[in-house]
């Protein structure tokens, strides 16, 4: 590692979150490890049920209880273990150190308070302040997320705003206290294309101003291509491939990543026939014993079914260049490394 440890803001190691359901035990997050570096944007891509959102919720310990429990691993924020904090300490960390933006701004905002009051609530946690001062800070926060006419908008209720504007308000609340880490879980999925472009540009400019590290949870490789520095691809609870974005797109090394990238039609080129991944993702309470992609994999070998493959460095990772560290959990790479 050429990166000094001080560069790592959030270190996640072997994180395991289990769900206890009627149908059985679901290993929603099953040994996930990654580092988030200062000022970078890390994408976590996967389909529904891959465990990407459960990973995000585990990082702030907001998993649904009692159905879900973090059963193992470690999450260190600036070296401090989060999984051992008390609930009161966690409340201080959320918003102050790690903030979240969720998919649906409608459900993130309280319909009976004005957006100004809701933004002010975050500041109130830092101690009581006069009402006029709160309003000023709320207006400044709205201006920061480029809401037009913030002096009037601050007195709006959420239903008086469009989806794109509400998501800006959620963004304003999230970055109001300059968190070290911002977790964005599909923040633009419910927005229109041109509004999505505005929002992504806004997130980037906030990151440039504040130096916040961003974890982008998404199912969309387009968002990854546009926003992320590095990416981790999840399938059935595990990271199957990670690496710098350019390297992942140039030489995707796990057959799942390859197929996923190839199955998305591009608006820029005409394609006669799209590749598609046959079959369905495995049911989460009945995972295959070996590689979880094996039943759908066109290159499957006997040993893939025997046990879960470890991470192998890809060829493009070069000679130990940590900047370009790119690895995939696939036996096809075994001979190469």
């Amino acid at each position, binding site marked *: 590692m050429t990166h000094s440890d001080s560069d790592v803001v959030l270190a996640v190691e072997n994180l395991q979150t289990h769900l206890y359901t009627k149908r059985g035990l679901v290993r929603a997050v099953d040994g996930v490890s990654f580092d988030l570096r200062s000022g970078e944007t890390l994408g976590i891509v996967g*389909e*529904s049920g891959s465990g990407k959102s459960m990973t995000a919720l585990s990082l702030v310990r907001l998993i649904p209880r009692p159905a879900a429990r973090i059963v193992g691993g470690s999450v260190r924020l600036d070296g401090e273990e989060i999984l051992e904090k008390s609930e009161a300490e966690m409340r201080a960390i959320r918003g102050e150190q790690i903030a979240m933006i969720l998919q649906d701004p409608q459900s993130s905002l309280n319909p009976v308070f004005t957006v100004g009051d809701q933004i002010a609530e975050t500041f109130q946690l830092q101690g009581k302040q006069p009402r006029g001062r709160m309003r000023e800070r709320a207006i400044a926060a709205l201006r920061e997320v480029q809401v*037009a006419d913030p002096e009037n908008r601050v007195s709006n209720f959420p239903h008086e705003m*469009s989806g*794109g*504007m509400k998501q800006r308000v959620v963004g304003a609340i999230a970055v109001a206290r300059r968190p070290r880490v911002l977790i964005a879980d599909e923040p633009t999925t419910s927005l*229109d*294309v*041109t*509004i*999505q*472009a*505005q929002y992504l*540009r806004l997130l980037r400019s906030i990151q440039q101003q504040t130096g916040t590290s961003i974890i982008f949870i998404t*199912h*969309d*490789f*387009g*968002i990854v*291509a*546009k926003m992320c520095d590095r990416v981790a691809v999840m399938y059935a609870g595990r990271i199957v491939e990670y690496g710098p*974005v*350019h390297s992942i*797109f140039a030489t995707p090394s796990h057959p799942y990543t390859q*197929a*996923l990238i190839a*199955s*998305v*039609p*591009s*608006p*820029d*080129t*005409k*394609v006669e*026939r*799209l*590749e*598609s*991944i*046959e079959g*369905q*993702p495995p049911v989460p309470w009945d995972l295959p014993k070996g590689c979880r992609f094996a039943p759908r994999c066109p290159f499957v070998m006997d040993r893939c079914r025997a046990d879960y493959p470890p991470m192998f460095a890809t060829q493009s990772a070069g000679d130990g260049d940590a900047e370009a560290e790119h690895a995939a959990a696939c036996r096809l790479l075994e001979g190469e490394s």
Partner: protein
Amino acid sequence: MNAQPLIEARRLSKHFDVGRGAPTGKKKVVKAVDGVDFAIRRGTTLALVGESGCGKTTTARLLLRLETPTAGSVYLDGADIHDLPRGERAEFRRRVQAVFQDPWASLNPRMRVRDLVAEPLVANNRLSRSAVTDRVAEVLTGVGLTPDHMRNFPHEFSGGQRQRIAIASALISQPRVLILDEPVSALDVSIRSQIMNLLKDIQQRLSVTYLLVAHDLGTTRYMADRTAVMYLGRIVEIGDTDTVFEGPAHPYTQALFSAALPARPATESREIVLDGEVPSPLNPPSGCPFHTRCPVKIGRRCEEETPKLQPVPGPGGTHLAACHLMDDMEGQRG
């Protein structure tokens, strides 16, 4: 080009009354669809793309006879579908079917797959029970499921399989037109291409005509022969899909396409980010509906005069855009 279009919309409009405004008591009208013209040839796909509120879904509902037009007409094989004799309406339902976005909402959870798929047939036909079952087995096989699935309930299937069931149900009455309203956007990424390929295969096999409503530009490029871009109830650009994508002429189309997410990390950004949001359809701008956000507005003409669709200079002549800039280009060329 030579063949008669199977479906044609002429000056099609749908306005909704939304009550009276408080201060003036004036009637408020949303012009959801406002004078739309297009034609779809047999066995081809026309895509309607645009952002929410642009009128693409209302247009689709007009084609399904789920809405009555305020003005204009839709012709299927030359007959006005909103002016059908009572006796021919059932036949219309057989010929025009739909597949919707959400296969969780579109399938009755208390019906078995056999009955779900057979429903259009039972409603319209007098086949024996066993003949119906045979036909269900046939269409299920055609969409990549097996006859064994007939006895299951929808909740036993994944999203992709449910959408296959919805497609089977739409196909069972041998329709000539399928209205596809965001058919893959609720599905997982790895399942989307399966369903898109299935829809393409079906079109090739049965030469069904598709109207695709989509917001995803990659899906549109892959699926559609022709593409119409809508903004505030109007078509602002229409043409062969490849022509429109490779040389978008309307400033809105250009901005929309540039805002689409890239397929791979781009070295340079060619993004045109529009300011503001789509104006309220309750109070649309005068003149060109796009002039409030247009980066290349050419002055008062755009604010006062609504541009008509006119040919985009270039070969072909089937590429149209509703923008005053086309006039200027025409002038320069001539």
